[in-house]
């Protein structure tokens, strides 16, 4: 079975080639079939391989398949190979599983779009790239996937390219990601320089020998890789592209900008965990950036009125949680949250898509309300996801978020302040999510009559994926129930072999965390739950029971509200201090350096060359006697030259 590893990325690639090469030649149902079947086939192979992997003893759960030597160039030797271990197994299941549901959903959502062929070709290409990213057995191939998903993200954000805002958003995503990629590349070069290989297994084996724990070098490598992660996974300071990316079709936001691509940074850090364990300073930076992003984005989410923007900032915030988990050396918790988040955030986006679909493309929540009775399935599944993201006990998000909060408090790399930020964010999350639910599904119907006439529940192709994801959002967390509940944390055990090597570098646990852990953990958990419930109650008061309260508070805090509504003016600040100077510099380089100096030099040279050509062709008189004369002169000069030597 292990020999079939390559099939997982191959199927979507074939799907892409069929849909891409036969663009416009296939019927709509054929395109749908090819796109969905290719991802479904990948999912089946992934499942089979997962059980294969599971049947192995935990320490030897690695399946590696090297297809061919990709780059044999001097000391740089890179294989084109795939690596399946517990970590990439989780990732491929999420990518193909959630990806398949979103493909199915898309068949309904894109039913009336004339560009469906292009859409599904891109979506398959994305799935292929993402699977290459998570299955790669070396950094370079991972980078190929990394760039591939970036390309697809660009193409799909700008899918409706006739719309200027969409094509601008695509460009913004691409450019911002390039900044991150630069860091990733340099980090990769440093690894190659010092280890002499880019193969994950070689790097992980050699790292303890080549690098000194805590040294500047390994810290620099980790920070550079993290720069790449901040770009791809939308962390401060490079998060700005993600909210704009909502210009793409909603299923794309669900697949790429919530469930899979944006989590690539988290995956990459978990994959490189041993290096990070050797660089506690870098870990601290990751934790601080993660926590700050979580809080920062959550506050922006409080004031947004566009349903997709709220979810976008929520995604940024939740990604912050994942980095917080990685930063406190609990990569397992980060990946766990990655998985549960993939379920409920994909569901939230798809639900939002269903709402937008029903509301005739209206995205502003101020013109919604009372949709509960029109869209019962969407409402119920959306509510499940909201409960999950808010961290209500029993739902998937509760377990993963709780683990992150506990680890950020108890881990040797953690700190009570980090916990406090996570704690506050949890409350804010519950608040803005229930604000969204109440504004959308409850209360007065604020849409115009024309729109109301057309409101309808989505077709089964869209609601069935919602229901499946609804179930997953509830039970998805049960494989990682904390120890204090007396259950086994299967998820942690599953990932243990991947994280084992890095554990040697973990600082000795502090006494406080070890002893009395259980009672503290209970206490913090209950505190969080109470706080979340209180936040939900306030949202209920403000946006359902007594909406005048919300208006009153908004007026009282006009300044703060405007600041949040305008997203702290970060885009404007970036524009003033980075974009404008760069544009000015480019103008200078173009108008002065290029046009005057470079073109002038080239043109001058060409003129000179032309002139010399004319001069030399004058010597060609056409008279034989002058040729013979030159012959003789040539001989004389040559003899003179030789004799002089």
């Amino acid at each position, binding site marked *: 079975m292990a020999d079939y590893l390559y099939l997982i990325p191959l199927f979507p690639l074939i799907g892409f080639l069929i849909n891409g090469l036969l663009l416009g030649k296939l019927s709509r149902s054929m395109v749908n079939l090819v796109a969905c079947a290719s991802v479904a086939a990948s999912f089946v192979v992934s499942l089979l391989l997962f059980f294969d992997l599971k049947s192995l003893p935990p320490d030897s759960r690695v399946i590696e398949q090297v297809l061919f030597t990709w780059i044999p160039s001097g000391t740089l030797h890179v294989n084109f190979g795939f690596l399946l271990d517990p970590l990439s197994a989780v990732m491929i299941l999420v990518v193909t599983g959630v990806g398949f549901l979103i493909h199915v959903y898309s068949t309904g959502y894109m039913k009336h779009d004339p560009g469906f062929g292009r859409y599904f070709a891109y979506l398959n290409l994305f799935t292929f790239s993402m699977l290459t990213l998570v299955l790669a057995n070396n950094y370079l191939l991972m980078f190929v996937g990394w760039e591939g998903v970036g390309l697809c993200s660009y193409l799909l954000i700008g899918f409706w390219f006739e719309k200027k805002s969409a094509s601008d958003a695509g460009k913004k995503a691409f450019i911002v990601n390039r900044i991150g990629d630069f860091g990733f590349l340099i980090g990769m070069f440093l690894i190659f320089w010092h280890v002499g290989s880019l193969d994950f297994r070689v790097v992980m084996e050699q790292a303890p020998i080549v690098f000194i724990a805590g040294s500047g070098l390994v810290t620099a490598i980790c920070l550079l890789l993290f720069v790449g992660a901040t770009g791809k996974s939308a962390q401060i300071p490079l998060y700005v592209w993600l909210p704009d990316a909502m210009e793409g079709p909603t299923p794309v936001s669900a697949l790429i900008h919530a469930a899979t691509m944006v989590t690539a940074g988290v995956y990459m850090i978990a994959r490189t965990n041993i290096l990070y364990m050797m660089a506690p300073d870098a870990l601290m930076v990751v934790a601080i950036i993660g926590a700050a992003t979580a809080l920062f984005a959550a506050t922006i989410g409080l004031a947004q009125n566009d349903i997709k923007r709220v979810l976008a900032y929520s995604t940024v915030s939740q990604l912050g949680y994942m980095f917080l988990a990685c930063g406190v050396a609990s990569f397992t918790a980060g990946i766990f949250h990655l998985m549960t988040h993939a379920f409920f955030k994909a569901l939230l986006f798809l639900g939002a898509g269903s709402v937008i679909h029903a509301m005739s493309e209206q995205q502003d929540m101020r013109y919604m309300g009372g949709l509960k009775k029109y869209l019962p399935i969407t409402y119920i599944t959306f509510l499940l996801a909201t409960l999950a993201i808010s961290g209500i006990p029993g739902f998937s998000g509760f377990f993963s978020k709780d683990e992150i909060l506990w680890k950020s408090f108890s881990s040797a790399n953690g700190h009570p302040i980090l916990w406090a930020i996570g704690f506050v964010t949890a409350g804010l999350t519950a608040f803005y999510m229930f604000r969204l639910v109440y504004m959308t599904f409850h209360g007065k119907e604020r849409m115009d009559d024309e729109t109301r006439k057309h409101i309808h529940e989505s077709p089964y192709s869209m609601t069935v994926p919602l229901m499946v994801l609804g179930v997953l959002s509830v039970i998805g967390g049960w494989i990682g129930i904390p120890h204090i509940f007396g259950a086994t944390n299967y998820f942690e055990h599953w990932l243990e072999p991947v994280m084992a090597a890095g554990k040697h570098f973990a600082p000795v646990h502090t006494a406080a965390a070890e002893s009395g852990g259980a009672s503290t953990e209970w206490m913090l958990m209950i505190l969080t739950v109470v706080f979340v419930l209180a936040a939900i109650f306030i949202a209920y008061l403000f946006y359902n029971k007594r909406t005048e309260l919300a208006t009153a508070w908004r007026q009282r805090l006009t300044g703060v509200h405007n600041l949040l509504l305008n997203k702290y003016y970060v885009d404007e600040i970036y524009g003033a201090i980075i974009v404008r100077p760069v544009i000015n510099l480019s103008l200078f380089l173009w108008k002065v350096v290029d046009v005057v100096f470079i073109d002038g030099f080239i043109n001058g040279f060409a003129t000179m060359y032309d002139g010399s050509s004319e001069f030399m062709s004058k010597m060609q008189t056409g008279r034989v006697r002058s*040729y013979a004369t030159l*012959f003789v002169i040539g001989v004389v000069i040559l003899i003179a030259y*030789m004799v002089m030597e």
Partner: protein
Amino acid sequence: MSSMDITFPAFDLRFMAPEIFLFLWALFVFAYDVTSKRKSSTAAGYLAMLGLMIAGAILAYTNYGQGYGSMFLFEPAAKFFKIIFLGSAFMAIGSSFGITKERIINHRGEFFGLILLSTVGMMFLSSSNELLSLYIGLELTTIPLFVLASFFKDNKLSVEAGIKYFIVGAFSSALLVYGMSFLYGLSGTTDLVQMKINIAMTHLTFKEIGVILVLANVLIIAGLGFKLSLPPFHQWAPDVYEGSPTPIAAFLSVGSKAAGLIAFAKIFVNGLYAFNGPEMAPNDWGILVGILACAAMILGNTVAIRQTNIKRMLAYSSIAQVGYIMIGMVTMNDLGIASVGFYIFAYMFANMGAFAIVAIFEERTGSCEIQSYAGLSHTSPVLATTFAVFLLSLAGIPPLAGFFAKFFVFASAIKMAQADATAGWLYWIVGVGLLTAVFSLYYYANIIKVMFFSKEASPYRVHYTFPSFGIVLIGIAGVIIFGLYPEPILKFASDISLSFGFLP
């Protein structure tokens, strides 16, 4: 005493079987031409091509060895160059059917027979191992070409080309013989291997032979420089190429040049190599030829851009190409000689192919002006595309064979310069080569621009006549296949260096 004691020299004839066959075949072609109705058909041309193919087959089955003492030498270098001669003659004849149909009515057989005779001369030349037979081979090569250049008797330009070629050729021939006589005077032998030893002895005995040797060297360089059209002995080339029948210009630019190259290699690399090193150097011909190579690259590539006639442009282009080949020659190591072989091989396909297209176009339109190619891609896309491929190969664009040709030449020179501190001047030559290669793109790409990016379609639609277009396809196949997979030719070419005493 019986007659058994007499060693019968005819035994050695087997080494020259291809030459003997081709010579007889040429006579047969003449005879056929006279006995047949003369106006009849293109049969003489096909006969000539058949003869070349048979000669090639005989060549393939001839063993290496030497005959008549060491006067006639058949070894890898000779074999490699004989393939070039046969190949270029084959392609020249193949592309001349259309153009001779209208303009040579009465003695087409002579045209083809003379090409065969010239080829025989080249083949003898590449096997000769001493000055006299080398000179005779060279003359046998050149004299038929004088006739061929002026074969369009009613065309003023063609006659002029023949006369010019003859006068300058006779002049250079005189210089060559003069130089050879000095070499003979210094060494007392015409055998190239023995000559090397004898000159060294003379040098050790008398010390003061420098000036005479210099005279000999320069005169021979001038004589062979005429064949190679190496500046300042190049001026006949554009006039002659323009005037003579297009396939003859092609044959001059490839076959005749290859003959000059092998003669040069034999006299200088084989015969005078010992005097290249500083310790016993009364002269240093390497740098001198290097300078001439630079002059060829600069002049050829520069003047070519001003040309409006495609044959003149290709003449200057071939002047420049010889400059690149001479880099390999003066590199004087195994890779250098091998790269010369590879270069001329790749050059044969690209240049013969390009001339074949010029011939096809000329047959249809009667014009050789670059402007008349405008918009050709609209009406004759296949022709325009193949022409573009040949031009790009000549310019050295990967993955065509011309790229590897230039690459190997430069690489061998760089390697030599790195290995030998006294060969640092090779860096300069490579620098000039790289720079002028960039310039050369200008005029090659200009033709592509004219053909492809002209708004109006060409008024001409070219017919793809059989043998000519077959030659084009052979050229295309060679340029692409040996560009993607140069190893076999490179391996064969590196055998040449063994013939010159370089161990790879």
